[in-house]
């Protein structure tokens, strides 16, 4: 069992200023599976995801307690480079924000800056990433077109592609489908299910239905506390905690 654990969150607490937003959280995230971390807004889900790649450190005056291990190694280890960590743990955000450059360059600029690669190697990486994100067929004719010209769903898949182009180990999606139409959402979910063969995927779904549809594992967070975690069936079909039950059946939230 332990070799399947990619990320281990141990007694993790998070404070903004003096306000605690995550309370003593313990969670294991398994390799090659899709783990949903879900719950109502302001429950600490986003903060938890942003802790995993230490993006939360952009905010002043934050403090953490406890530890997060990836492959058994603490991400807070002072010898570890934050940029390496972020390449390893890619993140896709709620609002797709492709840069105001071409489709190709959006995917290529990460690999260009991070590793020494030849032009043709980068072109291969870009093609591969766009295929994995199920976008290649729609954009292969116009790779030089500005990324802004894509539809919202395509932009979000482009953002997924540019994360994939860095060849990460973990991919996190923070409510990445909340602004999208059902068809785009379905495409993204489909590509995620294919991607889990290769990656560890963590998703903060925008609704319970999405979590039920795609997750292998699920964790329910409420007001900064982890209420319950388990397999899809355990959490959604027979939740142990009344609050989880109320939330997944739509009684609140």
């Amino acid at each position, binding site marked *: 069992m332990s070799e399947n654990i990619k990320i281990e969150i141990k007694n993790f607490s998070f404070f903004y200023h003096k306000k605690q937003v995550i309370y003593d959280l313990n969670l294991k995230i398994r390799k090659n599976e899709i783990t949903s971390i879900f719950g109502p807004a302001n429950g600490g889900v986003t903060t938890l995801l942003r802790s995993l790649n230490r*993006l939360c450190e*952009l905010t*002043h005056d934050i403090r953490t307690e406890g530890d997060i291990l990836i492959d058994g190694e603490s991400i807070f280890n002072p010898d570890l480079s934050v940029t390496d960590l972020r390449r390893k743990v890619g993140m896709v*955000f709620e*609002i797709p*924000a492709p*840069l105001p450059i071409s489709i190709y360059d959006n995917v290529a600029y*990460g690999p260009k800056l991070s590793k020494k690669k030849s032009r043709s190697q980068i072109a291969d990486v870009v093609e591969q990433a766009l295929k994995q994100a199920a976008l290649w067929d729609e954009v292969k004719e116009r790779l030089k077109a500005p990324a802004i010209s894509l539809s919202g769903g395509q932009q979000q898949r482009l953002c997924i592609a540019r*994360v994939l182009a*860095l060849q990460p180990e973990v991919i996190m999606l923070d409510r990445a489908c909340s602004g999208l139409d059902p068809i785009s959402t379905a495409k993204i979910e489909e590509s995620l299910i294919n991607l889990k063969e290769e990656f560890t995927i963590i998703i903060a779904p925008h609704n319970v239905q999405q979590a039920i549809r795609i997750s292998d594992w699920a964790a329910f967070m409420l007001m900064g506390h982890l209420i319950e975690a388990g397999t899809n069936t355990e959490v959604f079909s027979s939740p142990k905690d009344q609050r989880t039950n109320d939330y997944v059946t739509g009684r609140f939230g």
Partner: protein
Amino acid sequence: MRKFKENLPGYIFLLLALSSISALALITGFIVVRGAPIITDVGLKEFVFGMSWAPSLGEYGIFPMIIGTVSVALGAGLIGVPIGICCSIFLSEFAPPVITTIFRPAIQLLAGIPSVVYGFWGLIFIVPFIRDYLGGPGLSILAASIILAIMILPTVISISEVSLLALPKQYKEGALALGLTHWQTIRFVMLPAAKSGIVAAVILGIGRAIGETMAVIMIVGNAVAMPESILDPVRTLTTNIGIEMGYATGVHQEALFATGIVLFIVIMILNATAQYITRKKSKK
């Protein structure tokens, strides 16, 4: 009558707004009416590209002053723009909140210092320094460029900083999440995205340098000659008007107004360019 009462505030504001527009029209009209005849008399080419300015001999060529204006403004840009942009990057990206709360008002204060004080300080401090250590009379392109560089800093800094801060925070977070370093994020993502705002800041700063008169008169030397080095004194278009307006009459005075037309056009072009660039950005 009731309708008139309801609309009255509108009319009052319209009247007041018109007064500012009419001031513009009045001044523009006046300058053109007074300055245009001499340009047609002397010939546009002779006036703009003429090398000799000798009103007593009836020679009105402002080319050395155009060169003076361009070199002083360019010098101010070369010194002030890199410092200003770096400062805006520091303020928007690197400075801890404590520093920003002190720096920002301090930079605004820089804009509040009267230009005569800048000129006086330049005359007492910069000019002797240049004379003693670099040679020449001290009153020079270099001295004026340094002072103007300081004077355009508030413009360059605040406009570039605003355009950097106005970027969607997803640009920055997205880039950092891709494992770019902070500097790579600034260099390859934020600066290109804020480019139009920063270019506008530079153009407005240069425009300010071109228009500045008082400080420049005091330190630029005001000799009507083609400069051979940055240590030579020059006269700029603005200082030409500032110096000679006191005693100019007749055709001479018209020639000063014509200088004003040239200056006016240059600054209009710069401002229009800046506006065009910023508007292009907001359309995107």
